[in-house]
């Protein structure tokens, strides 16, 4: 789980082109959208692609994303629960 969270932070920084942000700077519970990392609607779509491509998880309803992508913590929990399902 800790490894997965670290991996997710790395992927978020790299795939969403976050400049001057390091893995250490993202806390597990930091909000990804709005005040937190300031991600926007295109980033949310990008995270949906990441779930599919890297973890084989397809969101049936994109609206689910809002809850899943709240923080690295919630993302990791969702992936752990659904991976290989």
């Amino acid at each position, binding site marked *: 789980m800790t490894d997965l969270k670290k991996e997710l932070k790395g992927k978020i920084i790299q795939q969403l*082109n976050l*400049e001057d942000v390091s893995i250490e700077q993202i806390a597990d519970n930091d909000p990804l959208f709005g005040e937190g990392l*300031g991600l926007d609607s*295109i980033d949310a*779509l990008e995270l949906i*692609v990441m779930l599919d491509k890297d973890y084989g998880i397809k969101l049936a309803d994109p609206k689910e994303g809002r809850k899943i992508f709240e923080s690295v913590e919630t993302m990791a929990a969702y992936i752990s629960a659904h991976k290989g399902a």
Partner: protein
Amino acid sequence: MSTENFHIESYSQIRNQSVSLNGETIFKSAETEFNAFIKSAYKTLDTQYPKFFKMDQLSKLALIASDILLKTETDKNVALVLSNRASSLDTDRKHQASLQEQEPYASPAVFVYTLPNICLGEISIKNGLLSENSFFIFDTFNAEYLQIYAEHLLSTQKAKKVLCGWVDFDNGKYDAFLYVVAKNGIFAHSKKEINRLYKTE
């Protein structure tokens, strides 16, 4: 037909690892790779736009070239009339390549930049411009068409000023030449003068 006279207020260029304003170099770098070069230009020229790092190369080029002209601009009715040769082909190739991978996928963050006018949106957002936008594609720089279109927007009061020019990014090669057309300015707004400034190194 309009007989009013308009002028070129200022112009910017980005080519050969340097950024210039009205013919004077304001940033130069030893970086030959575009992304490293334009990033250091962004930082040195104190451009404030957090989304910069998420943009494609064409938008980065257009944003820096426009920002040095618009930074001090207070009028918000500045139309944007840009042109180039390669459209968004650099990003188009990237999107197409991802579709041809072993496990094909499409990235929304790449796809959204597969339109040349997205850079107009970025410039509008950065500067709060709710103005006329158009993006033309020409085989080579076409001063005549740009001159006529800008003149129309100004003489019909559809815009107070027009940011015109050329922003091309293709296979790692880049070339930007932007200029602001207004009532008053230093240079004549003529096809000949636009071409002269475009060719100025």
